[in-house]
């Protein structure tokens, strides 16, 4: 299967690079996201990951996944370990690693186990304290080796930073290629292993993961109007959540997965409703005749944040469910939209318009302090990583849609782009169980 870009790039390339042409012709139809780091944390932990021992090809693949994950997180500085051969069974010479300025060291191996499975083992050490920090033994089928690598990176990340890692999580996003091809993709958090969950000739927007990670809800325009579907990823089974007269949009799961907050226009205007996760029992919230949309639940499920133009410009408000009291949250500027609350409930990510540009901002909900995190022109659709450390957004670079992951302090920035099309509408999935 040849990627369409072959015919576009082919002519110009023949003269100067046969290799590039060969590479293109071998690239599969579904191009993967490539990640580029554009910033790093202030105090990165120096860490040595030695080449895993055992079965050489698998070990090399596994080591590169672990290193890649930790490196891209912007939280670690990877030390050179070339020429050093050790496994989880080797006792480290702590003074040597201290001289190399390592704070932590991980070593491991991959061996062929029973039934064609692979067994990966590793051990993590604290160099300053000269103690092991623990390790794991994982068995994996050969095609799940990347997943084992993400598990190991998660373990190391959590031991050294005190927060769970998100390398084993998945992301969803929409790729638009050409005038009328939209694909809802599910990929690993490092952009690899992308699979299409939905292919359509009409737009797909606002994907949102069920809390258990088994389903996505989204808005599809395949019926010439916005309709909300819930889509089971493994089976591909879809049910209509909302296909009422008018528009159906902006679905957001309640944290318990039983209900969704949605925006319906069936009673005129755009109003927020609660609806059961099987599409039954739609119930309107509030009586404002203004625009009310983009609902988002707080982690305790008790409060909804949303966007409304009731004050004359789009601003973010919140409403405790069961109460008629609505509180305005944003005041700076005349365009503040797309509220998302962090998993710990303390921070709100949103999009703010500053000097004509749309930028990702965060608000500390206790102090109401706002920090604008980017200097882009077209940020959209923020989504927190399940550990709350990074925010995934859609933005535009050179007129093309890309995804960007930005740390909540704005220091670390990763850009995820796909050569074959426009990437947009990201949603970071929950921890995998």
């Amino acid at each position, binding site marked *: 299967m040849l990627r369409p870009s072959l015919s576009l790039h082919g002519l110009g390339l023949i003269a100067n690079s046969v290799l590039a042409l060969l590479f293109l012709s071998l690239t599969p139809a579904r191009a993967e996201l490539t990640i580029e780091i554009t910033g790093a944390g202030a105090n990165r932990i120096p860490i040595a990951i030695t080449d895993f021992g055992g079965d050489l090809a698998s070990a090399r693949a596994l080591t590169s996944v672990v290193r890649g994950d930790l490196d891209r997180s912007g939280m670690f500085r990877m030390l050179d370990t070339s020429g050093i051969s050790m496994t989880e069974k080797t006792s480290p010479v702590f003074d040597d690693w201290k001289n190399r300025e390592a704070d932590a060291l991980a070593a491991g191996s991959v061996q062929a186990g029973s039934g064609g499975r692979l067994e990966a083992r590793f051990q993590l050490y604290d160099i300053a304290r000269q103690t092991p920090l623990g390790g794991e033994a994982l068995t994996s089928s050969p095609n799940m080796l990347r997943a084992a690598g993400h598990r190991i990176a998660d373990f190391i990340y959590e031991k050294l930073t005190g927060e769970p890692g998100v390398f084993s999580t998945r992301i969803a996003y929409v790729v638009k290629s050409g005038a009328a091809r939209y694909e809802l993709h599910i990929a690993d958090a490092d952009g690899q292993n992308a*699979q*299409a969950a939905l*292919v359509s000739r009409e737009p797909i927007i606002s994907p949102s993961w069920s809390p258990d990670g088994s389903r996505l809800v989204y808005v599809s325009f395949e*019926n010439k*109007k916005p309709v909300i579907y819930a889509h089971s990823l493994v089976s*591909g089974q879809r049910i209509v959540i909302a296909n*009422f007269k008018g528009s159906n949009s902006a679905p957001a799961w309640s944290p318990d997965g039983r209900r969704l907050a949605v925006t319906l226009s069936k009673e005129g205007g755009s109003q927020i409703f609660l609806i059961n996760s099987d*599409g039954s029992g739609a119930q309107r919230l509030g009586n404002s005749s203004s625009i009310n949309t*983009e609902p988002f639940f707080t982690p305790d499920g008790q409060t909804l944040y949303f966007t409304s133009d009731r004050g004359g410009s789009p601003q973010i408000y919140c409403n405790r469910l069961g109460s008629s009291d609505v509180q305005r949250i944003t005041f700076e500027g005349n365009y503040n*939209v797309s509220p998302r609350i962090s998993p710990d409930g303390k921070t709100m990510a949103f999009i703010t318009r500053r000097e004509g540009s749309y930028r990702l901002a965060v608000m500390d909900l206790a102090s109401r302090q706002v920090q604008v995190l980017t200097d882009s022109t077209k940020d959209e659709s923020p989504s927190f990583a399940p550990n709350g450390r990074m925010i995934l957004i859609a933005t535009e670079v050179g007129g093309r849609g890309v995804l960007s992951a930005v740390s909540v302090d704005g220091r670390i920035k990763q850009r995820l782009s796909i050569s074959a099309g426009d990437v947009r509408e990201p949603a970071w999935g929950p921890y995998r169980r």
Partner: protein
Amino acid sequence: MKRFIIPTLLVLLMAGCSSTPDAEQDAAPVDSRSTSGGDVATVTANGVDSRRLPPELTDPRSILSRRSIYFDYDKFDIRPEYRDLVTAHAKFLTNNRQFRMLIQGNTDDRGSREYNLALGQKRADAIKKQLVLLGAREEQVESVSLGEEKPKNLGQNEAAWSENRRGDLLYSGEF
């Protein structure tokens, strides 16, 4: 990474009431699915087929062939130049009660997709209100929004944006 897609399974799901628990809602989609060997099955969404329309709705000499109403930036009121157009469509709907109309509101692409969907809804609602006022029946007309998703002009300048701030009128058979 390997990505050879082998459709091992093709399931056609009949649209039925069973999957939509609410009578107020329309039916479920007809999907085709394939599995690619991974843990995500790929669904292909099917579009909608069009039917033939009477010539007075499509003849370029007929005012009823004009189906777009343009709006000013951040505005939702119908400009006076569209009064005759709206009146003609209201009259057609009054004289042809068997016809249904779908009004699709659109916006330019600046700002949030979901907020733009709400803005497009406001434009579609404004057109619907005028049509009903002039004789169309409430149940004949559905106003929906495509937000910024279906721009007529992909440019990033005021001329392009003004083409995208519009409501489109579609008759039964066109949606």
